[in-house]
């Protein structure tokens, strides 16, 4: 008995729309979630045309598939998925004449896509994890589907038949887990590694940090839960509710440092040529389907999102630095780089949000363009949630507020000396407080700093 894929109906429509276009064949990715019992597919995305190619460009034979382009697309899409969602496999829509060779092409793509999405991951697959990835073949004339899976851990694995079922509410009922993780990674650079690229050094620090996250204790809604228990245990099911809904869980991550993590009797002293500091607070999110989800799977999804979001941001930054490299900057005494911020946007007809990363100088329009290009999804500018404020904006806020408070106190003392009337002082103190409120309210600082 092969695996079962429960597929959102809109995916079927999307595939049939693609197959009506006058093309010999089209490739794309399938996105969803793996669970021990079954897999869920919520989105299909066609491989975007290359910039130099026009929409109407039409390769004639399967050998023309640009494998590198497909895998690059897969790794870009993979960055846009929150925890729990992954590239489940690939599809090819082809004319009946090509049907014979499609399976071989699919097999090749399944393995290369998997390789590209896991290439720079800082975590490893767990022992009992489902590692079957799907290869979907669609005939553009008959619309006939052939669904097979390959075990991506075994390079010699043969195709296993799988079940492909359409359902209307696959992407509607998901549970989300959220947390904001404080990051403060210090990477000392001893003489031996000081000349390495910023990327390599940062990656070393991230690997250590990822290990700490892997070993962390996760509390869901303030409670510790048995790993094999069901996430929704003890909660009433609201079966009557047909509205797509998201039940959100707040997660806390705790870490413990072993008392005897080092057996040294003295502190380690390293002679360093420099150091790297990675600081901030990152928003992390994971989704899990609400069909008997296990605590273990939910935690694993969030844990991987925490690790991925930070390593992906660093990757994006380093790619950007490579493109816009300014000569001579390397020798500066101090280098400063702001990592891109994470933005979430909902996909049509689903309660799930996907994400993208935005540099400070990028506009919402650019994010929208990227959603169209990478995910073939139109998102509204007002749906893009930037729940972040930049690190330095945060610092500036605090600075302004401290300045205002000090000013208030100074005025109050000056008045106190001048008048020596206690009543007058309290009056002026209230005036400064009101002033502070008026000044801070529009900036949104009042709520933040007066909790």
């Amino acid at each position, binding site marked *: 008995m092969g695996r079962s894929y429960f597929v959102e109906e809109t995916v079927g429509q999307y595939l049939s729309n693609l197959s009506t276009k006058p093309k010999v064949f089209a490739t794309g990715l399938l996105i969803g979630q793996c669970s021990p019992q079954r897999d869920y597919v919520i989105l299909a995305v066609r491989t975007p045309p290359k910039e130099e190619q026009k929409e109407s460009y039409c390769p004639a034979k399967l050998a023309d598939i640009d494998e590198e382009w497909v895998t690059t697309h897969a790794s870009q899409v993979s960055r846009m998925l929150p925890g729990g969602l992954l590239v489940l496999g690939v599809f090819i829509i082809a004319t009946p004449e090509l049907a014979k060779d499609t399976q071989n092409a699919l097999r090749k793509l399944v393995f290369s896509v998997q390789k590209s999405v896991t290439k720079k991951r800082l975590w490893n697959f767990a022992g009992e994890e489902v590692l079957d990835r799907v290869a979907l073949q669609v005939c553009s004339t008959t619309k006939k589907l052939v669904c097979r899976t390959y075990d991506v851990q075994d390079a010699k694995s043969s195709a296993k038949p799988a079940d492909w079922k359409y359902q209307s509410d696959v992407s509607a009922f998901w549970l989300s887990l959220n*947390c*904001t*993780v*404080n*990051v403060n990674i*210090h990477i*000392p650079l001893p003489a031996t590694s000081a000349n390495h690229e910023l990327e390599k050094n*940062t990656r070393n620090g991230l690997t250590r940090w990822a290990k700490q996250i892997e070993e*962390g*204790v996760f*509390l869901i809604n*303030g*409670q*510790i839960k048995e790993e094999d228990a069901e996430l929704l245990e003890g909660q009433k099911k609201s079966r009557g509710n047909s509205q797509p809904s998201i039940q959100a869980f707040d997660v*806390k*991550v*705790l*870490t*413990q*440092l*072993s*008392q*005897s*993590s*080092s057996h040294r*009797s*003295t*502190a*380690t*002293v*390293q002679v*360093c*040529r*420099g*150091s*790297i*500091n*990675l*600081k*901030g*607070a*990152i928003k992390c999110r994971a989704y899990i389907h609400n069909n008997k989800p296990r605590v273990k799977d939910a935690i694993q999804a969030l844990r991987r999102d925490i690790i991925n979001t*930070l390593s992906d*941001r*660093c990757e994006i*930054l380093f790619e950007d630095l490579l493109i816009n490299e300014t000569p001579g900057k390397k*020798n500066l*005494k*101090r*280098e*400063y*780089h*702001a*990592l891109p*911020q994470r933005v979430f946007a909902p996909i049509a007809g689903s309660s799930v949000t996907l994400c993208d990363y935005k540099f400070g100088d990028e506009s919402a329009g650019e994010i929208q363009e990227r959603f169209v290009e990478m995910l073939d999804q139109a998102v509204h500018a007002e749906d893009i949630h930037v*729940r*972040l*404020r*930049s*690190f330095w904006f945060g610092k500036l806020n605090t600075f302004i507020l401290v300045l205002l408070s000090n000013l208030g106190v100074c005025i109050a003392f000056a008045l106190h000396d001048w008048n020596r009337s206690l009543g007058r002082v309290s009056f002026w103190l209230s005036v400064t407080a009101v002033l502070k409120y008026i000044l801070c309210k529009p900036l949104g600082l009042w709520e933040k700093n007066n909790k």
Partner: protein
Amino acid sequence: MDILFRIRGGLDLAFQLAATDEASTKKALKYVFSDLSNKLSSNVMVLRICHSSVYIWPNSGMNTIPSELTDDSACKEIMRFIQYDQEAETKRKLTKKKDKKLQDMQQVVNVDFMLEMTSPSAALGPVIEKENKEHHYVSMTLPVDVVVSISPEETWRNVQNILVNAVHKQLTDMERCIMKYMKATSIMVPEQFHFMLPGTRHLVTISYPMGVPDDQLESYRKELHGLFNLPSDRPYFRRANAYHFPDEPYKDGYLRNPHVHLHPPGLESGLVSFVQENAYFYKQSPSYEVGCTLKKLETLDFWPEFLSRAKAAVRRATVFKQGVTAPWGAWRFFQGCCEMSDNLAQLDVQTQFTG
């Protein structure tokens, strides 16, 4: 009987040094310790009660069982949430049945020291800063080991304050210990030892620099004798005299109680007794009849080295354990005991004359 709360865990201490002279190291240390102290005063500090699902945020009074453990609950309530493992539970029950005296054995609540990585505040776009500056990077893990003895009726609110203050106090002690024994950038890791002083039932915790032998700490130990008004006839503050917690294995590996790994023989006519430490020489001792053979066997094995009568190497207690648990091991062990008890009797006589 008071409950002992024992908090253990590690705390990262790391800082950069531009200059390596002692004054600047001390200045940097002071700064980093005050930073750690701020951390311990915030909600970042979390305590986990071992063998339970209880986590507490002592600085905000929050915990994972808010409906059952409120600020006004008596702290003994926490015992309800601790699940002992099978072995410890059986032992506890047996002890209750067999020996009333042991019923008021010290109750220890082990607590893990943890740090929270998440926060409820809004996200802050992360930044990478690279600094190209020559410096020394000093890092170590401070081993936290705090013990507080608290009355079972004390309110949970007060207990949380006591625990936080005790952790702060230990941080100060560790800072003092580091400052006292550091030489330039060579910084000793402070290690905690608990001592039960004569005439008291409370433990006193002292931070000693790891790796510095007791002899070199003599002046400090004498100072401590003065501080606690102790006579100078016994080295109370030697590391070897530190308090041993009932739920902790001995570090030297010697078997203190040979009965620990023996299963009851199940003989109806048999007599099961508890062997009391060092009491088996006296016939009036209840341990004499049953326990003495086994106890003597262990003693016999490491006495020769003490008495310098034989060059036989000390066999570790684990060898006994393996021997006894092997098939027919218990029977062979018993036979061996019978043979050896005669030899031991002779050795006893010799010892009385020479020792």
